[in-house]
């Protein structure tokens, strides 16, 4: 009882503080007499929608340009785009929702949707989506992503674009070693062994041991033995199963036995993965289309290629589908107006512009068939991988962030060096999402 009273007063207090802050900010925005505001133009008040998002290139104006196009065609709405780093969007969202002052809409990563939905902050979008005449144009995996992988769940967010992971490799290294492109996990290990030369500072595989590298670990495990070796029927981790331990052995042996990863692998994140590929330290690495431009510009188009994730011994392949989406907030000013904006972003025109500029994959089939995407070899590999692309498991679990950002990066060093057994490593990871 006491606990309940405390929670209500805290929430009320936070909401009050948020409203006070919002009120102050809003009062500063209200134009005074003679400032040429809406009042002098016939009394029509524009609804100013707050939209938070991130783009890979912070100097890019693509979202501002899209907002300008939208604003031109919607005289009663003005979208204010605020760009910030991807992690900041989530952190600010949590603070704003707790203060009762969320934005009207925002971009959101699939990993964060469950948390925000659990707070009751999302405005369900099924009703709007179902009324769209071209809703079947959306890639089913993307729509499923907006339902967090559960067909019966509400449509939490509006699909926007997606990313599919695949394997980059250096064709020049493979050619010199007389190797075919890696189609199976056995090919992959053999190729990595063949191209590794520590004395020359060359390694076969750029393993991501830093934050979020667990995604690649899950991808290898699921390709080797199926997703059942990672997640049980109830969604719980099954990291104690023999298939899982065998897969973990296979993964850790890349460092322990085959020694085909750089000695820095336990601390290598995205930045190091890319730098190592560009500097000729590693010959293969997992990532998605967004890194293709920088790799091509550094290595040359002839020296970097992509293939779908190698197939495991059972003939299975499993890769990550990372959807990015837009959310509409229940606590926003006008969810209908916010829907107008996020549905515009998902329109063929806006999706084509955004994906061309920002580098993501369109999640509309009509846009995906555009020659620009079909002729791009990296987009083609992504599209070819789509049938085997799924949401990463456990993102709906509260401990997922700890697994991705603390336990995984801290434990990869003892695990890859052989100080920690595969079973202990897997068990410690499972603790976070059990």
């Amino acid at each position: 009882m006491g606990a309940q009273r405390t929670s209500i007063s805290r929430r009320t207090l936070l909401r009050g503080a948020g409203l006070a802050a919002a009120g102050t900010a809003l009062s500063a925005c209200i134009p005074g007499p003679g400032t040429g505001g809406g009042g002098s133009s016939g009394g029509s008040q524009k609804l100013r929608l707050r939209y938070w998002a991130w783009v890979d290139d912070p100097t890019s104006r693509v979202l501002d340009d899209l907002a300008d196009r939208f604003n031109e065609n919607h005289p009663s709405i003005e979208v204010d785009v605020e760009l910030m780093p991807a992690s900041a969007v989530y952190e600010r969202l949590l603070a704003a929702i707790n203060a009762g002052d969320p934005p009207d809409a925002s971009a959101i990563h699939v990993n964060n949707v469950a948390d925000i939905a659990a707070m009751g902050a999302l405005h369900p979008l099924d009703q709007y989506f179902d009324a769209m005449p071209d809703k079947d144009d959306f890639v089913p995996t993307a729509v499923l992503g907006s339902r967090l992988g559960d067909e019966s769940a509400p449509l939490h967010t509006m699909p926007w674009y997606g990313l599919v992971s695949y394997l980059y490799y250096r064709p020049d290294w493979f050619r010199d070693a007389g190797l075919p492109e890696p189609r199976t996990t056995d090919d992959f290990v053999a190729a990595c062994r063949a191209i590794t030369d520590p004395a020359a500072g060359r390694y076969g595989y750029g393993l991501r041991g830093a934050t979020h590298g667990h995604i690649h670990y899950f991808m290898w495990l699921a390709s080797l033995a199926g997703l059942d070796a990672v997640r049980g029927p109830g969604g719980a981790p099954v990291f104690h199963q023999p298939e899982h331990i065998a897969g973990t052995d296979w993964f850790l042996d890349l460092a322990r036995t085959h020694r085909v990863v750089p000695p820095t692998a336990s601390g290598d994140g995205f930045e190091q993965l890319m730098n190592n590929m560009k500097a000729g330290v590693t010959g293969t690495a997992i990532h998605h289309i967004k890194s293709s431009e920088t790799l091509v510009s550094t290595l040359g188009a002839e020296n970097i290629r992509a293939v779908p994730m190698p197939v495991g011994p059972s003939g299975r392949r499993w890769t990550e589908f990372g959807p990015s989406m837009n959310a509409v907030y229940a606590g926003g000013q006008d969810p209908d107006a916010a829907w107008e904006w996020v549905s515009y972003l998902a329109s063929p025109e806006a999706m084509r512009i955004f994906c061309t500029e920002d580098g993501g994959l369109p999640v509309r089939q009509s846009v995906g068939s555009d020659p620009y995407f079909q002729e791009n070899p990296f987009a083609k590999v992504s599209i070819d991988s789509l049938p085997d692309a799924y949401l990463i498991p456990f993102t709906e679990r509260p401990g997922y962030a700890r697994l991705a950002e603390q336990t995984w990066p801290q434990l990869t060093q003892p695990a890859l060096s052989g100080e920690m057994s595969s079973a202990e490593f897997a068990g410690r990871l499972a603790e976070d999402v059990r």
Partner: protein
Amino acid sequence: MSAGATAGVAPRRTGPPAAPVRRARRRPRDLLLPYLLLLPACGVVALVVAFPIVQSIGYSLHHYNLREPDNAYFSGLDNYVRALTDEMFWRALRATAIWVGAVLPIQFAIGMAIAVLMNRAFPGRLVLRASVLLPWVVPSAVVALLWRWLLDGNLGVVNDLLIRVGLIDTGIPWLNDPSTAMAVVVLAMTWHGMPFFALMLLAALQAVPAEMYEAAHLDGASGLQRFRYITWPSIIDTIRTTTLLRIIWLANSIEIIWIMTAGGPNFATTTLPVVTFFEAVRGLDFGYASAVSVLLALILLAVVHLYVRQMRKDD
């Protein structure tokens, strides 16, 4: 000499003793005025210092996670019990002690050596003074990125130089090996904070009257004796203040560790501020993060108390 001495003596009062001065009765308004003048400053301090402290203590007594704002409730000392029974807390406390215990003396020793050097007249002294300041004016995030690049296991300059001179065959993963990670973050922090000691100690050294050294020189004191009996006692108060401040800053610092190693590998550089940061910013567990930060503050208070008591004893 005698003139100066005479000038320093107050003239002796002659004649009958003056009647005691009666203190005028002060009106209540005059009594209140100083407090009224202090009020704005007190208000600011209360707002920016006292309020966050009280709020942190309040949070630490609650289960309060931003992911579940409707499930916030008073939980008494649960967060403290959780921290004190968590092996990670004690590991982080040990790492914090190693971090402060390693950085502080090295920074002090180098800072003192530079201050003594810069206190002498030599060509280029001004250039040296300006260049010594550089590590201090560079933002700590930039310092961390700079050292991370220098020490990169694959592409870093340090490994490249060591390989070129034949000291090593392959690159050392400085930041990814638990046996070297703490040493390299200590190195980066030492480089960054050393000018603080150098400048503060230089200022103190310059306040020591030159006559004292001249007199000691005439009395035949050696350089070491002059340092021990003149320099050290003259600057000891500055040393105490600067080391005390540095202990507090170091124990609370996070940027360099977070950017260079994020507390890894295998928690080798996870200090208490790293735990607090992770729990608050990534875990969004404000209750637990507040409890850890309150515990760190209490530990620091105890250290400061012991330090100040020892200072008084020495005096």
